[in-house]
C-alpha cells in the first residue's frame, strides 16, 4: 500500500528513486473519521501530514482558515515550533500519509532542491499569516467613509464682499477658508444662483501681501471656482487620492447636492492615523508617561473607526488588547528600575487578561516578585504606575486589584499561599480572586513567574468536584430574561437589560469553569470555547453558537459603551431593547435563550442543582 504515495506532487517530485524508497519505508498512515481532531491546538507535530484521501479543515478559533485536500500537506509550522493556535479537524473521513520529522529533515539536508522547496513553503506560510492581520486592518481603513471624519462647517461670503470681510469671516469662524457665493442675491431664484468658489488663507496672503492688492477689493473675481468636491458617503481613501493628485489641502464635501462642509487634510489624516501600527510606534517611542497618555487616548479613536467600518469585534479586541498591553509594558519599563524588571512579572487579570477589553474598564493588575528579591523603591513605582493609568483613563479598580495595593504586589510564595487559601477556603471574594487570576496574562518582566503560579494553581485542583461546584455556581447568579419569561420580557421592553450580567458574564464564567476543570492554558473566552470543543467537552455546534452569541453580545456592549461615553470608559452595560433594530432585537433574544441553555448545561455538568 505504501506504493500509493504520490511522488508526482511538489516538493516530493524532487526526490531521487533511492530517497523515495527511504521516504516510503518511513511513512506511517493516519486514519481519521469525520470531525476527528488530527492536530489539536498547541499540539506539536512529529510529522508532516500529507492528505491522501479526504478533506481537512484548518481552524483558528471558530473559523476555518484553510482547507486541505488530497496531496496537500500540513503543518510545517507545527513541525518547527509548538504552541500554534490552530487545530486541524477532518471534514470528511480522511487518510493521511505521515512523514516523520527526522526523515523530512534528513532528505531536506541531502537534497538541496527538496529542502529549498520545503523552506520556501514554510516562509510563504509565515508571511501569509503576518499579512493577514495588517491586511484586515488596512482594508477596514480603506473602507472608511468621509462621514467618519470631522467636517468644518462651511463659511459663506458674498461675491461683493471685500478681502477684509473674508478675512474677518475666517477669523470669526476659526476657519482657514471661505466659500464665495457668486450671483446677485437680490435676483433670487435658484437658476440665477451662480457658481461657488473658494478663497483660502493662503490665497489671502498671496493676494494682499505678495501682490499688494487693496484689502477692500471684492472677493468675487479673485476666488477660484474649480471646486474639488466629493459626496459625504464617498470613501475617505478617494479624498486622500484627490488631495494628493491636485496638491490641495481641503475638499468641499456635498450631501445630496448641498455643500455640507469642508474636509481638511489634517482631519483626514487624523482618521487614517488611527491605524494601530501608528499608535504602536508611538507607544514604543514614548519617552515619558505623558507621551503614552496621548497614545492611549488615540485607541478610542481607533475603536470608533474600526467599529464604524464594520470590523468584527473579536478582531478589534485583539488589536486593542495588544495596544493596551504595549502601553502597560512601556509604562512599567519607564517607571521600574532594571532589577525590578528582571525580578518581577507584571500581570493583567480579568477581561484584560482574557484579551476581551474594548473600552477602558477597571484596571485589574498585579505584580509577582521573585522570592527573596527586595526592591526598596517598590511602593513608589507601583503607586506611580497606578496613578498614571488612572490619568490615561483606566478607572481604578473598586476592589483595589491593582499593583498599588500590597495584596497584589507580592512574592511568588505569598501568591501560592493565597491560591491555596482561595482553593481550600472558598468564600465569595476568594472565588472572584481565583477567577480573575486564572485569566491572568503576563505583560512585562519575567513571564516564568506567572507560569509557575498558574502551574501551582492547576496542580492544586486535582479532581476536586466540590471545589468546581462552588466555583461554577456564580455563573447562574444572575437571571437571564428569556424562554418562559419571554412574554414578560416583551412587556418589560422599556426596561434596560444588563447585558453583562444577563449574557456575557454567564458565558465567560461558565466557560472559565469548564476550562479550569480541564486545566487549559488559554485565557481568551472564544479560544477556550474552541479548545473545549476540540477536547469534546462542548459539542462543536454548541461551541459555534456560543462563540457567536458571545461575539454578538460583546458587539452590543461595545455599541452601548461607545454611545454612552465620550471618554471611552465602559460604564454603561445596559441595553434598551426598544432602541435595537428588529434584526438585532431578534438576535439578542436568541442569544439570551442560548445563554439560558448554556446555564442548564453548566448546572448539569457541575451538579449545581443539588
Amino acid at each position, binding site marked *: 500500500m*505504501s506504493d*500509493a504515495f504520490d511522488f508526482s506532487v511538489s516538493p516530493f517530485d524532487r526526490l531521487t528513486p533511492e530517497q523515495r524508497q527511504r521516504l516510503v519505508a518511513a511513512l506511517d*498512515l493516519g486514519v481519521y473519521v469525520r470531525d476527528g481532531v488530527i492536530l489539536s491546538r498547541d499540539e506539536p507535530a512529529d510529522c508532516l501530514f500529507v492528505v491522501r484521501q479526504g478533506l481537512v479543515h484548518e481552524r483558528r478559533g471558530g473559523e476555518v482558515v484553510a482547507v486541505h485536500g488530497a496531496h496537500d500537506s500540513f503543518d510545517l509550522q507545527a513541525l518547527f515550533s509548538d504552541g500554534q493556535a490552530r487545530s486541524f479537524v477532518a471534514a470528511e473521513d480522511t487518510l493521511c500519509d505521515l512523514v*516523520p520529522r527526522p526523515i523530512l529533515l534528513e532528505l531536506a539536508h541531502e537534497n538541496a532542491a527538496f529542502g529549498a522547496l520545503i523552506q520556501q513553503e514554510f516562509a510563504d506560510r509565515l508571511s501569509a499569516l503576518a499579512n493577514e492581520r495588517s491586511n484586515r486592518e488596512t482594508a477596514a481603513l480603506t473602507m472608511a467613509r468621509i462621514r467618519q471624519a470631522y467636517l468644518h462647517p462651511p463659511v459663506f461670503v458674498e461675491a461683493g464682499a471685500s478681502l477684509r470681510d473674508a478675512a474677518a469671516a475666517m477669523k470669526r469662524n476659526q476657519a482657514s477658508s471661505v466659500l464665495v457665493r457668486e450671483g446677485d442675491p437680490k435676483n433670487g431664484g435658484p437658476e440665477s444662483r451662480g457658481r461657488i468658489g473658494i478663497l483660502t488663507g493662503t490665497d489671502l496672503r498671496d493676494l494682499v501681501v505678495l501682490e499688494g492688492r487693496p484689502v477692500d477689493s471684492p472677493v468675487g473675481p479673485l476666488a477660484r471656482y474649480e471646486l474639488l468636491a466629493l459626496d459625504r458617503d464617498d470613501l475617505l481613501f478617494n479624498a486622500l487620492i484627490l488631495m494628493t493628485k491636485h496638491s490641495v489641502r481641503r475638499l468641499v464635501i456635498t450631501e445630496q447636492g448641498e455643500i455640507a462642509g469642508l474636509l481638511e487634510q489634517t482631519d483626514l489624516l487624523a482618521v487614517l492615523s488611527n491605524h494601530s501600527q501608528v499608535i504602536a510606534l508611538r507607544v514604543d517611542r514614548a519617552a515619558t508617561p505623558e507621551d503614552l497618555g496621548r497614545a492611549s487616548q488615540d485607541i478610542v479613536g481607533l475603536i470608533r473607526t474600526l467599529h464604524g467600518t464594520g470590523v468584527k469585534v473579536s478582531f478589534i479586541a485583539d488589536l486593542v488588547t495588544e495596544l493596551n498591553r504595549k502601553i502597560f509594558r512601556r509604562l512599567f519599563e519607564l517607571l521600574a528600575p532594571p532589577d525590578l524588571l528582571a525580578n518581577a512579572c507584571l500581570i493583567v487579570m480579568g477581561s484584560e487578561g482574557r484579551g476581551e477589553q474594548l473600552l477602558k474598564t477597571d484596571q485589574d493588575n498585579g505584580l509577582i516578585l521573585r522570592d527573596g528579591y527586595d526592591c526598596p523603591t517598590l511602593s513608589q513605582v507601583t503607586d506611580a504606575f497606578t496613578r498614571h493609568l488612572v490619568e490615561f483613563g483606566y478607572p481604578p479598580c473598586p476592589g483595589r486589584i491593582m499593583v498599588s495595593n500590597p495584596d497584589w504586589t507580592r512574592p511568588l510564595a505569598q501568591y501560592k499561599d493565597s491560591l491555596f487559601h482561595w482553593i481550600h477556603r472558598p468564600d465569595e471574594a476568594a472565588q472572584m480572586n481565583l477567577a480573575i487570576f486564572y485569566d491572568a496574562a503576563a505583560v512585562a518582566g519575567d513571564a516564568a513567574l506567572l507560569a509557575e503560579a498558574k502551574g501551582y494553581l492547576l496542580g492544586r485542583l486535582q479532581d476536586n468536584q466540590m471545589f468546581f461546584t462552588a466555583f461554577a455556581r456564580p455563573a447562574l447568579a444572575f437571571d437571564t430574561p428569556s424562554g418562559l419569561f419571554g412574554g414578560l420580557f416583551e412587556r418589560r421592553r422599556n426596561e434596560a437589560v444588563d447585558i453583562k450580567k444577563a449574557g456575557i458574564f454567564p458565558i465567560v464564567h461558565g466557560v472559565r469553569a469548564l476550562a479550569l476543570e480541564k486545566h487549559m492554558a488559554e485565557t481568551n473566552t472564544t479560544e477556550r470555547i474552541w479548545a473545549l470543543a476540540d*477536547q469534546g467537552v462542548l459539542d462543536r455546534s454548541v461551541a459555534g453558537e456560543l462563540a457567536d452569541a458571545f461575539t454578538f453580545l460583546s458587539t452590543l456592549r461595545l455599541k452601548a459603551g461607545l454611545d454612552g461615553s465620550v471618554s471611552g470608559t465602559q460604564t454603561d452595560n445596559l441595553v434598551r431593547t426598544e432602541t435595537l433594530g428588529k434584526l438585532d432585537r431578534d438576535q439578542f433574544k436568541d442569544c439570551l435563550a442560548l445563554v439560558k441553555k448554556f446555564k442548564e448545561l453548566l448546572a448539569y455538568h457541575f451538579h449545581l442543582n443539588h
Partner: protein
Amino acid sequence: MPTETIASVVANGVVAAPAPLSTVADTAGLHAEHPDRALLLSGDESGERVAIHCEATSFDAATADLRGVAALRIRGSRVLTSQRLILSFWPTEPAEPALSRLLAFIGNRPLVGYYLDFTVGLLDRLVQPMVGMALPNQRIEVSSLYYGRKAKAPGKYAVDLRLDSILRALDLPPRAGDDAYASALASAMVYLRLEPPQP
C-alpha cells in the same frame, strides 16, 4: 535441529490441544520460564493494537501450513506502517525464531484482523507448544465490527462481509495485493474507521 520442520511442530500442537487440564498445567510448568510467556501475560500499557494477517496453504486452521505473517501496530489514529513486521515461514526452516520475533512484536496488545479466528488458530498451533499456552490477547474482528454497524440499519439484503466489499463501502483504498501485509493494513484501516480512538 534440521529435522524439526513446521510439520513436526504442528503435530506437537495438535497433540497438546485436546490434553486434559492437568497435562496443560504440567506443560505450563515446563514453559513457565519462557520469556515470551511473561510478555504475553503482562498488563497492557501501550494502548496500542496490532493488526495481523496470515498467509497459509489452505483455509482450514487445523491443517493449513503457515507461509507468512504480517503485523502492524496501531497507535491512536495511526497505523505504524514504518514499523511493520513481515515474516515468511518455510517448511524446511525452524519456525521458533520468527515466532519469537512475532510474539515480541505483539506482546500483550489486542489483535485486530479480518477472519482473525483463522489467523490466531493457525498461530496457536505453533505458539502453544512453544510457550505452553494459546495467545491470550484480546481479539477484535473487523468484519464483526462492520456487521454490527450494518445490522443497525434495517435492510432486506444480507451484509456483504468480504474484505474488499467492506473497504469499498467504507470508502477506503482497495488492497494493493492479496498478500498478508495488504490484508493486515486493510484490517487496520477498517478498524480505525469503525472504532476511532476517543479523544
